[in-house]
């Protein structure tokens, strides 16, 4: 608090009112989504028709709840599968990148660093179409040359994983590098002096030190992967992840089952987000 600066009380109260309004603005859509998950009406809109659990546990059409809605459950599993691979790959590559950029000096380092940051400023939809175009071109060439099918290079889960990995790795690299920079190299030197091999020292000293950052990066990667829409939309095949399934439903108009899914998503990501904050301590 900056003390010693005189401010009129009108100004103070206007400022506080503005901040309050801002937080209401932030909360409003989320509160609305959650509230309508319990509305006893087949549309997520006014008027309020009373409280119900149907959109979670309902079994009869049109009141099928999330836990009995097969396509949505399947797309959650798909999203989980994608998120697992994206998180594993991006943490692995991100850790290598962190060691490379923090520990090594080599010609062209700053150029490579800028290149590494580029995925942050490429719009997601462009990443999506560029990977789509490129992989289809390779698939066409390979199929013409060999007469075999290369389904992995056609829109589908592999491309979705690669597309999300292509920009989430940048975030993983930044998170892990930040922690590696704080590492005291003398600890590793001590291990080397005590007869540890280079790799042994890294494995028993440096990696455990990095673990919180790697775990936080993994959590962030899972969250980003679950949320991602733009890149995924361009690369998706027949198995749609959750966001794409929900988008298709939204466009057509849907029952409040979507609100129920959203509420569950919020709870899950709040838990994960808290976990990542705890890990980063």
């Amino acid at each position, binding site marked *: *608090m*900056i003390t*010693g*600066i005189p401010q009129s009380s009108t100004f103070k109260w206007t*400022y506080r009112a*503005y*901040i309050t309004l*801002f937080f209401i603005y*932030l*909360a*409003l*859509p*989320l509160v609305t*989504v959650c509230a309508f998950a319990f509305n006893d009406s087949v*549309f997520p*809109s*006014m008027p309020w028709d009373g409280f119900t659990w149907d959109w979670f546990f309902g079994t009869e059409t049109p009141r099928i709840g999330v836990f009995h809605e097969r396509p949505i459950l399947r797309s959650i599993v798909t999203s989980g599968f994608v998120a697992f691979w994206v998180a594993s790959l991006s943490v692995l*590559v991100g850790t*290598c990148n962190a*060691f*490379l950029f923090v520990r090594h000096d080599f010609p062209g380092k700053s150029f*490579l*660093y800028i290149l*590494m*940051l*580029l*995925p*942050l*400023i*490429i*719009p997601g*939809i*462009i*990443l999506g*179409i*560029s*990977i789509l*175009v*490129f992989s289809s*071109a390779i698939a066409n060439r390979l199929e013409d040359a060999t007469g075999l099918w290369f389904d992995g290079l056609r829109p589908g889960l592999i491309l979705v994983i690669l597309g999300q*990995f*292509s920009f989430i*790795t940048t975030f993983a690299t*930044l998170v892990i590098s930040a922690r590696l920079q704080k590492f005291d190299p003398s600890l590793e030197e001590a291990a080397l002096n005590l007869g540890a091999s280079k790799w042994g020292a890294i494995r028993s000293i440096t990696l455990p030190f990095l673990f919180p950052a790697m775990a936080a990066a993994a959590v962030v990667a899972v*969250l980003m992967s679950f*949320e991602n*829409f*733009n890149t995924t*939309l*361009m690369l998706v095949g027949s198995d749609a992840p959750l*966001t794409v399934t929900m*988008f298709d439903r939204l*466009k057509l108009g849907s029952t409040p089952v*979507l609100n129920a899914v*959203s509420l569950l*998503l919020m709870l899950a*990501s*709040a838990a*994960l*987000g808290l976990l990542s904050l705890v890990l980063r301590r």
Partner: protein
Amino acid sequence: MSKDGSRLGLILLMAPLLLWLVTLIILPHIGLFVVSLSEKVGVRTYETGFGNYAVFFTEPLYWNTFARTAYMSIMATALTLLIGFPVAYYIAKLTRGRSKTTLFLMCLIPFWVSELVRTFGWMILLRETGVLSSFLQYLGVINGPVEFLYNDFAIMTGLVYTSMLFMVVPLVTTLDSLDDSLIEAGYDLGASSLSILREIIIPHAMPGIVSGCIVVFMLSLGNYLTPILLGGKDSLWFTGLIYSQFITRFNWELGSAFGFLLLGLSSVIVFAALKLTGQSLGKTMGR
């Protein structure tokens, strides 16, 4: 450790980075550019040329949409900055300890859920049978239901909402590092609040302002969900054109050209912003 050994280690460490950047970023973008240069002249026959780009410039719908997307994105960025700056200043300078952490975390919470859910929330609020319309009818401000969805105002609300985090976080970080005594010194020397804002606070917050604006602009420009869902069929957003060329019309050549134009626009504006304010990409993004 021998020199050769560390050389080998360096190469091994660099391999994943290069594999990632070359196969998923560089080559696909070169491929995209090559496809954007091929014109379809017959069944499975193509010619190299700038025909797809010519189509863009001769068809008013396309470049109007392009200009509109750029303009709306710049407006959304400016609005986000205007709305977010006082909030960031409040969090960074006027609160302390626990309440500071709480307020900061409260800013982050909405962004742990997907953009789709946030947009869905705005749809429920703004649609004809939605919360806002019912509330205003209840108050007696309007007589019948009013559709607040499917217009530019709705798009703008959604864009500002969706990018707020990316503005507030860098602003709070840079404002936090500003020494309070500098502001107090300004007051002691008799400066007005406005000149302190202009001479001390804004110059200090510049890196945060630039990185926030770049990210928000990029997110708005490349956004697909918010304009399509909140703007409806006539949202005329450039990413919507790209999507329809790729998925509905199956005209990948024109779609690639559109993609490259969007990439060009965003790069030009990002680099212009960096140059004008004397910042570097590594410094603003690599934090």
